[in-house]
């Protein structure tokens, strides 16, 4: 049951390195069939969380359940259902593209080489070229084609578009979204770029200082949050629901509120907030242990 509803569940997940906690109290339930963005600044713990999810790291606390199976007890069969694309799209640079595909087929239980070849042919990437001589965008496409050839139920990508130029980024997302349209794959990717998230994601996880500060369905989050603009005030703010952020200028106050009604006082206007601004507001927020714990549990 959980396997069909949720692609991924974590409970109290944490990871401690020698220098301290990289991730703490991470409790998430991410729906199957969606595209989930994991957003946060560099050093927020994104890569640690992704590596815990695919079983490359063992948790210090808590559990990870992927497609209904505990990751720490995973078998080759469950692992074959998860695809992982590490940062910078690593390929064996001296291998030709065809050799990379043969390598992929040899190392995976499930591998659709024909599918990968068709994808690369459509993109005009020659199979006889060495991976190291391809452009950054083409290398990313080869790595993505390899990951998709596994026909994974869950595809995890660490900063897949960070190093790509705008055109290569668009082409990469076209292929990735096309794969989602074919059905059957849940995509989880990390990014420190919040621009343009809205067009590719349904679901959002914001990570900051090793904690989940916001998570949920994007349409729901946008509907729950509003910007209230009115005459400058520093009192009576509790009437306006949960204030996420308050910005005061000489005459105006702008409040970002969650589940808040518009104040009855005259001169107040409510405006919807753009996703990018919402994410930035949560990233700017000073860290409060109790608030982070409740928003994580509400996932």
């Amino acid at each position, binding site marked *: 049951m959980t396997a069909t509803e949720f692609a991924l569940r974590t409970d109290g997940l944490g990871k401690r390195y020698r220098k301290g906690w990289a991730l703490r109290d991470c409790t998430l339930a991410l729906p199957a*069939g*969606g*595209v989930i963005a994991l957003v946060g600044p560099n050093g927020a713990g994104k890569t640690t969380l992704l590596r815990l999810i695919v079983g490359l790291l063992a948790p210090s606390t808590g559990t990870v359940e992927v497609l209904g199976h505990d990751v720490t007890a995973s078998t080759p069969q469950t692992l074959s259902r998860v695809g992982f694309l590490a940062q910078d799209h690593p390929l064996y640079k001296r291998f030709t593209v065809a050799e990379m595909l043969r390598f992929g087929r040899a190392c995976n239980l499930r591998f659709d080489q024909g599918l990968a070849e068709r994808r690369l042919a459509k993109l005009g990437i020659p199979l006889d070229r060495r991976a190291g001589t391809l452009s950054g965008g083409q290398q990313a496409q080869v790595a993505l084609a390899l990951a998709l050839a596994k026909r994974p139920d869950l595809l995890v990508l660490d900063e897949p578009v960070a190093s790509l130029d705008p055109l290569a980024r*668009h*082409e990469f*997302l*076209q292929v990735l*979204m*096309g794969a*989602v*349209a*074919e059905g059957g794959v849940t995509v989880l990717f990390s990014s420190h770029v919040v*621009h*343009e998230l*809205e*067009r*590719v*994601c*349904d679901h959002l996880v914001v990570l900051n200082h090793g904690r989940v500060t916001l998570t949920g369905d994007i*349409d729901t989050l*946008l509907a729950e949050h509003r910007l209230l603009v009115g005459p400058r005030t520093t009192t009576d703010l509790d009437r306006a629901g949960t204030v996420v952020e308050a910005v005061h200028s000489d005459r105006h106050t702008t409040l970002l509120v969650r589940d808040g009604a518009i104040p009855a006082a005259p001169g107040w*206007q409510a405006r*919807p*907030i*753009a996703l990018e601004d919402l994410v930035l507001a949560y990233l700017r927020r000073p860290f409060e242990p109790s608030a982070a714990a409740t928003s994580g549990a509400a996932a």
Partner: protein
Amino acid sequence: MFVFRLDTHSGVPPYLQLVQQVRQAVLLGFLQPGDRLPLIREVVEDLAINPNTVAKAYRQMEQENLVTGRPGQGTFVNEQQSAAMSASTYTSLRRGLATWLRRAYAAGLDEQAVNALFTSVHQQTRNEDVA
């Protein structure tokens, strides 16, 4: 074939942008009854957009009776009952707005001020209608 656009800075959710574009195109006659919309897959690969977003937009358009999805064939624009306004209403509204805009610019308002004024009055009128 109808082509969708996406404005990532508008603050309007992407699915709603798609719905609004079809609604507007129908209203202005760019889309006519029987026209086929692109397949979800085509929109996805064209815009690099989440397929669930496109599916949601198409579902909403079906609920609004704007289009009908026929399995295996595609999604087609419906015959509109009252949605499409008459040509004379359209012309007269458009002319009225143009006159108002010329007055606003003549009074020294710039584009931003015009938008702010329009939004403010629009919001107020809507609130009065709700109340």
